[in-house]
């Protein structure tokens, strides 16, 4: 009386949709079925990071609402003079397009990773890192420009003092995330290029065996950095 493979415990095909949701959470095995733990943990980390960035943005909203001094004209503060003409938010727009492009190359790197196309994956991750580094470089330029114009965390010549502290805090924390991402992208590109994911070689830090899911987990972090920028762009630069 052999077990029917479909009903044997542990091999049960989990249900889909709302039923699957209830079944997953009420089971005492693993909640996230068919989700590699690395991916689930990255998502939970990103959730916590969401709260960090949301705290920054909410505190920015609070100080901006409560200040009695006019907020600086952001469109003007971040304008660039091109050929004698002032173009509002030009640098920020370019940074936005660069970060979106880096997300595009990252998504394709994940795709080629699952196809086990080592070469294309590594090159696309490298392109992503290059876009990210460009973004950080432009942010450094922007910071320099504003600091030269007298913007400080405790005050600035354009209006409400809270502008400086919000700006340095929010963009600084985001820029830090991008920088960390670039470092990890370079490490990942090297791993992919050397074929460490194909041979399932243990990583130098955690000893985890290499596989192409790592590229997707890395991609999740990178897309999150882009996602946060969407909110910063809307609330800080456009509002």
């Amino acid at each position, binding site marked *: 009386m*052999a077990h029917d493979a479909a009903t*044997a*415990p542990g091999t049960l095909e989990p249900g889909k949709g*709302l039923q*699957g*949701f209830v079944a*997953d959470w009420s089971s005492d095995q693993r*909640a*996230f*079925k*068919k*989700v*590699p733990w690395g991916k*689930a943990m990255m*998502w939970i980390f*990103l*959730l916590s990071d*969401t709260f960090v960035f*949301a705290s920054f943005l909410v*505190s920015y*909203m*609070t*100080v*901006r*609402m*409560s*200040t*009695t001094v*006019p907020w*600086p004209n952001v*469109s003007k503060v971040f304008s660039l003079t091109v050929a004698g003409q002032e173009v509002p938010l030009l640098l920020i*727009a370019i940074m*936005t*397009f660069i970060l*979106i*492009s880096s*997300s595009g190359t*990252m*998504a*394709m790197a*994940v*795709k080629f990773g*699952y196809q086990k196309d080592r070469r294309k994956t590594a090159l696309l991750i490298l392109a992503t890192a290059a876009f990210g580094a460009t973004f950080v470089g432009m942010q450094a330029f922007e910071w320099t420009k504003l600091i030269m114009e007298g913007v400080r965390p405790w005050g600035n010549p*354009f*209006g409400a003092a809270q502008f400086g502290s919000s700006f340095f805090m929010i963009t600084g924390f985001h820029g830090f995330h991008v920088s960390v991402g670039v470092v990890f992208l370079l490490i990942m590109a090297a791993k992919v290029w050397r074929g460490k994911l194909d041979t399932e070689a243990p990583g130098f830090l955690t000893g985890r065996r290499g*596989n*192409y*899911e790592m590229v*997707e987990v890395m*991609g*999740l972090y990178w*897309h999150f950095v*882009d*996602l946060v920028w*969407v*909110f910063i*762009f*809307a609330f800080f630069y*456009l*509002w």
Partner: protein
Amino acid sequence: MSHAQSHEHTPAAPAKLEGQAHPISVYLWIWGLLFVLSFFSYLVDYFHFQGFLRWSLILLFMFLKAGLIIAIFMHMAWERLALVYAILVPTCALLVLTGLMSLEGDYTFHTRGAYFAPAVQEAVKPH
């Protein structure tokens, strides 16, 4: 025969890992859409839209972009509902925080107006 039997009795393997496999055109389309949406939100500022039109457009483009990134680039659209809910539902708490802090900010603003009115008048000048 014996091979088949031994296979049947192997303990349940850890969940089979499934890679995300989608045609590359999906990503290129989303990439293009994100460019267009970003361009539109830039135009909101460029044409100096003000008031309700401004912030409704900013929010619209923001949520569309965020949705595309999460759903397609981060593959949320293809994840199991258990994971989707675990990530998306807690973020709703942020709406509560935003609501509370906007009340708080408004209150602080009016308190400052009531107690430091001269400073307010002094500060409000064109820039």
